[in-house]
């Protein structure tokens, strides 16, 4: 393949994590190459495509209509009985995006800033000199070749094969991974096209939830995420539930997608000599709702800062690069660990108890619980406890 042999940075994988790394490294004038195994960036989609407004703001990404296809004003939570709890804001709280377009948008930005991107190129392994990773082996259209780089970024998604080949165990534990399945559906009827709808039920989504992420008034991503070790498949959960939803059941399925979501198996170690792991490959996902795009791009920003420092200081050792791990935990990882604790509490809640919760909390309480830290949540719940003795029994049951 007609490609320069030596790079500052080689990024493996063209999802949000890899593309954002390429953009940021290019902005820092580093010589960066991104290799993507699929023949089209952004496809196939394995995602509900929801991205909160906070991420657009923090990352400085404008929600352009070419990919931010549908604005969202909040969420509605459904208890197993069907009772709803609406959390609606008076302004836009996020967008459902079109990943196919989003990845292309990011790729164009990376390329125009000077990064090089090559699709249909699989990285098969890293190259080592002693303990130092000094490049990658790759295949493009049947042709094998080797490339050198000062730093390799493994942004290869949940499969996370490259880090494992390099010697870091990133295998997903079945307890810390959700199995997901989704249809993009058209010609459907649902109540709140301006909100994301989340359905909780141990019957139809064990340790997870079903979702409707609207892309229009009769058009949405409809999916489910469940505990990875569940014997019943995610597809079966979704199909069974759709049977109970007349407005959805009659619709057309225009895309089928599946995938798994690393929800909480956080890694203590995210670097090796010459290697940094970013995004799903490093299990950087919100353990409660499974959102990973924003977190992946933020981690890419942290990674590229460290990469630029490493290149300036000519120090590509694990010791130097591991500053990425500590900075990421400071910025995001520690918060996610707290969220994981909350999930563990939620997992224990039975369908019946969930009804009690939904009946005693209002939309504002839910927001406090979702966004606040554990202390804030505890305060909110305690106030409610005083008013509703039934909740006391629940607290004793779950928080012992």
């Amino acid at each position, binding site marked *: 393949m007609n490609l320069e042999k030596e790079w500052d940075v080689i990024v493996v994988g063209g999802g949000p994590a890899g593309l954002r790394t390429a953009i940021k490294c290019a902005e820092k004038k580093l010589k960066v190459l991104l290799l993507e*195994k*699929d*023949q089209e960036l952004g496809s*196939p989609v*394995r995602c509900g495509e929801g991205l909160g407004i906070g991420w657009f703001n923090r990352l400085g990404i404008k929600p352009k209509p070419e990919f931010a296809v549908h604005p969202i004003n909040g969420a509605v939570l459904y208890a197993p009985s069907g009772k709803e709890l609406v959390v609606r804001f008076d302004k836009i709280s996020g967008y459902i995006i079109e990943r196919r377009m989003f990845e292309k948008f990011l790729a164009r930005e990376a390329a125009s800033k000077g990064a090089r991107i090559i699709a249909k190129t*699989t990285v098969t392994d890293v190259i080592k000199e002693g303990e130092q990773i000094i490049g990658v082996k790759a295949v493009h259209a049947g042709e094998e070749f080797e490339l050198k780089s000062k730093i390799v970024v493994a942004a290869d*998604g*949940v*499969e*996370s*094969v490259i880090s*494992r*080949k390099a010697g870091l165990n990133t*295998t*997903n*534990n*079945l307890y810390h*991974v959700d*199995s*997901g*399945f989704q249809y993009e559906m058209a010609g459907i009827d649902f109540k709140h096209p301006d909100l994301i709808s989340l359905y909780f039920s141990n019957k139809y989504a064990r340790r997870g939830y079903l979702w409707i992420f609207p892309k229009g008034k009769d058009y949405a991503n409809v999916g489910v995420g469940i505990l*990875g*070790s*569940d*014997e019943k*498949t*995610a*597809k*079966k959960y979704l199909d069974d539930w759709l049977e109970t939803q007349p407005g959805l059941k009659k619709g057309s399925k225009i895309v*089928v*997608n*599946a*995938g*798994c979501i*690393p929800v909480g198996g956080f890694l203590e170690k995210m670097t090796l000599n010459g290697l940094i792991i970013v995004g799903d490959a490093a299990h950087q996902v919100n353990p409660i709702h499974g959102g990973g795009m924003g977190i992946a791009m933020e981690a890419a920003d942290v990674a590229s800062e460290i990469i630029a420092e490493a290149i300036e200081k000519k120090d590509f050792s694990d010791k130097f690069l591991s500053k990425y791990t500590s900075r990421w935990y400071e910025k995001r990882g520690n918060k996610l660990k707290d969220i994981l604790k909350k999930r563990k509490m939620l997992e224990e809640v039975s369908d019946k108890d969930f009804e009690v919760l939904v009946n005693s909390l209002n939309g504002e309480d839910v927001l406090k619980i979702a966004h606040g830290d554990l202390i804030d949540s505890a305060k909110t719940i305690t106030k409610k406890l005083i008013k509703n003795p039934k909740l006391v029994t629940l607290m004793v049951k779950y928080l012992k």
Partner: protein
Amino acid sequence: MEEKRFPEFKSDLCAYCGACVAVCPVLALDLKETKLFLDKNKCIKCMSCTKICPVGALK
């Protein structure tokens, strides 16, 4: 106890999502676009892939 066996793959059900690769502790599975390969020399018959598979293509 049930005798250990290799996972069985039904390609017509597969959605090529890579979930199985993500949980395989020994990198015995390799997904190449729309083909899935199982290396029986590496597989330890732990059946994790059959549990995570969102569509039941691995049994």
